[in-house]
């Protein structure tokens, strides 16, 4: 089965190409079948590949590499187009194809009224194909192809409704901001190739371990550049600004970008290049600090948003922050575990939000919703499950197991600290608060807007499946004290370094778990109380709170800062220099010669006498020169 691996990324590409070329001539049903079907077959195939891969478990470090064709072969630089399957990429493609398929299925109904139905599916397929290429790539150049590919698709899809200028603005912002990170990644590739002589990921890791001493500056620089790339794609501080605006796209697009593809690429990249990060403790600490800072910062912003999708956007930034924190403290498999559970519940939440938005005629503002619980029971219950999972409601949700693992490891890791743990716990409190603020505003309280549409089966089925997964997804990595065997962690430890515990800290895990659970539940209770007793409104009335509110609302002023420091000066420079200052030199030259021409023209006045004078003077000068020189 493994030799069919190449079909997995090829199928969405083929679907995309087909739809792009012929899509406008096909009926909608055929487009839906093709668009969702290609990813669906992909998901099935991934399942088969996974079974056959796990069947090979006899050898401990089994990986499968498939070379499709030699891409370049110049002057010792020979990356090929080849796919590499190991435990890490297997988990990634399983989640990606499964969640993507559910989102595609959902979209077949969600987008049915759109004029550009085929373009939508063409771009969505391209997105999935690029993401699969990214995670399956055997070398960095192919990874970079997928990396840029998802950037392009995010640009296309965020700006899908291009008629609105602000959608185009959001799309451009996403593309350009992530491109900044991509450039850092490209520079990292230059360093890697120049110093290690290859771009094959496996060889790079071995060579780096052999040639670069731990803590050497070159390893740190490379790791930091990779981190910059990851930060751009994963919307972490300080390049997180594109993501909240990216909500301009259709809701399934947001689900796809945020849950399964694109933003998790950064997490994958760091996990994939873990050797380089292990060589550089400074870079690894930077990962953890960025993650911790981001999860708190984004949590505050999430707390004050009005737009339901923007709450989810900030929550994505915050949850990816958790993954970065996990990576930074060396809890590699915990990060991937959280990626998986996050993919399930975040996709669920986005799709649920999409149902709500569709039912209320495109209303995004939560303050104009309310009381939808009775009108859309299925959406409400699944959304609630997603929200519980996001808030890490203990024991029953998948989110609890993954997040609890990260919080615990942030403390007990050899690289962890109390501060990182405190940030994670505080973030967890914020998560519960903004999540249930969203649930309360949308589904409880007085009915403000009637739900006009009920989702059909293509929209409901993904909700149900994802809700089940958001509950049961935690089982794959159930820790020992809950009777599980940490299966995922064991599986991933084949490719990822194992977790190192700080001596003396690995005690009282149970107590920490209980505390974290209390914090999550406490957050829910707190927001419930605040909102019920009208305290929430009272607090937000005070002027200081208002200032804070607008500061958080605008994402901590990052946008304004970048606009002031980078965007405006560049645009102004371009505007001022529109006529090209260098061209002035040449126009000046031509003006000068024109002036000279004018001057000489003045002598040709048509008077015979002045001609004679000229002749006489000229003769006098020549004779004078002849005599005196």
């Amino acid at each position: 089965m493994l030799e069919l691996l190449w079909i997995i990324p090829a199928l969405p590409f083929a679907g995309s190409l087909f739809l792009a070329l012929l899509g406008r001539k096909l009926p909608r049903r055929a487009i839906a079948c093709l668009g969702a079907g290609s990813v669906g077959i992909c998901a099935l195939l991934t399942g088969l590949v996974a079974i056959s891969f796990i069947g090979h478990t006899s050898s401990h470090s089994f990986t499968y590499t498939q070379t499709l064709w030699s891409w370049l072969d110049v002057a010792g630089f020979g990356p090929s187009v080849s796919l590499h399957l190991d435990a890490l990429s297997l988990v990634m493609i399983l989640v990606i194809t499964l969640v993507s398929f559910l989102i595609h299925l959902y979209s077949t109904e969600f987008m049915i009224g759109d004029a550009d139905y085929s373009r939508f599916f063409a771009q969505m397929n391209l997105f999935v194909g690029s993401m699969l290429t990214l995670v399956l790539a055997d070398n960095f150049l192919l990874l970079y192809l997928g990396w840029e590919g998802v950037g392009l698709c995010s640009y296309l899809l965020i700006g899908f409704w291009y008629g609105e200028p602000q959608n185009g603005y959001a799309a451009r912002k996403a593309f350009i901001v992530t491109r900044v990170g991509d450039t850092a990644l490209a520079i990292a590739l230059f360093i890697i190739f120049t110093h290690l002589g290859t771009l094959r990921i496996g060889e790079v890791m071995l060579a780096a371990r052999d040639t670069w001493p731990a803590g050497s500056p070159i390893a740190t620089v490379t790791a930091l550049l990779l981190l910059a790339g990851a930060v751009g794609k994963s919307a972490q501080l300080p390049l997180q600004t594109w993501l909240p605006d990216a909500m301009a796209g259709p809701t399934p697009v947001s689900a796809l970008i945020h849950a399964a593809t694109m933003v998790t690429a950064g997490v994958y990249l760091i996990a994939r290049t873990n050797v380089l990060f292990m060589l550089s403790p400074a870079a690894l600490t930077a990962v953890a600090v960025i993650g911790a800072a981001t999860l708190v910062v984004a949590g505050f912003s999430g707390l004050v948003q009005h737009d339901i999708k923007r709450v989810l956007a900030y929550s994505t930034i915050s949850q990816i922050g958790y993954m970065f924190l996990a990576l930074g403290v060396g809890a590699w498999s915990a990060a991937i575990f959280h990626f998986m559970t996050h993919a399930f519940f975040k996709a669920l939440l986005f799709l649920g939000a999409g149902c709500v938005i569709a039912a209320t005629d495109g209303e995004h503002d939560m303050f104009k919703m309310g009381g939808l619980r009775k009108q859309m029971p299925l959406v409400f219950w699944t959304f609630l499950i997603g929200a519980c999972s996001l808030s890490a409601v203990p024991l029953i949700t998948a989110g609890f197991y993954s997040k609890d693992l990260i919080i615990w490891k942030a403390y007990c890791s050899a690289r962890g600290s109390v501060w990182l743990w405190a940030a994670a716990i505080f973030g967890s409190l914020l998560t519960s608060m903004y999540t249930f603020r969203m649930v309360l505003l949308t589904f409880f309280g007085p009915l403000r807007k009637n739900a006009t549409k009920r989702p059909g089966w293509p929209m409901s089925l993904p909700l149900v499946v994802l809700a089940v997964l958001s509950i049961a997804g935690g089982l794959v990595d159930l820790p020992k004290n809950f009777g599980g065997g940490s299966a995922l962690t064991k599986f991933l430890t084949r490719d990822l370094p194992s977790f190192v515990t700080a001596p003396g800290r690995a005690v009282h895990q149970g107590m920490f778990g209980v505390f974290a659970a209390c914090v999550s539940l406490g957050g829910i209770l707190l927001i419930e109380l605040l909102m019920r007793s009208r305290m929430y409104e009272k607090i937000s009335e005070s002027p200081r709170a208002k200032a804070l509110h607008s500061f958080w609302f605008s994402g901590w002023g990052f946008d304004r800062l970048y606009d002031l420091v980078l965007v405006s000066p560049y645009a102004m420079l371009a505007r001022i220099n529109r006529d090209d200052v260098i061209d002035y030199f040449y126009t000046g030259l031509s003006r000068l010669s024109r002036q000279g021409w004018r001057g000489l023209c003045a002598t040709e006045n048509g008077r015979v006498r002045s001609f004679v004078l000229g002749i006489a003077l000229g003769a006098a000068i020549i004779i004078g020169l002849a005599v005196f020189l």
Partner: protein
Amino acid sequence: MTRIVGHVLILAAVLFFLGLIGVLVRRNIVFMLLSIEIMFNAAGLAFVAAGARWAKPDGQIMFIFIVSMAAAEVSVALALVLQMHHRLKILDTDAAKSLRG
């Protein structure tokens, strides 16, 4: 002998400059032609003096050339003057500026 030649050359130079000034200041084309004629003859005088100085016939030959050329020039120039008068009804060279660039 050389002193006389010196005097003659000074005379020739004076005549030449008188002619030149005449060309430059007079606007009537007939007077300009007269002035040119004076310049020709100044040059001719210089040739004659030089021929006498070195006792060679070249100076006189040149003078005959100049005289014959002056005659030819005058015939052409007067024809032009007549044409100018015929067409433009003026003899003022400054007024005839169609040569202006």
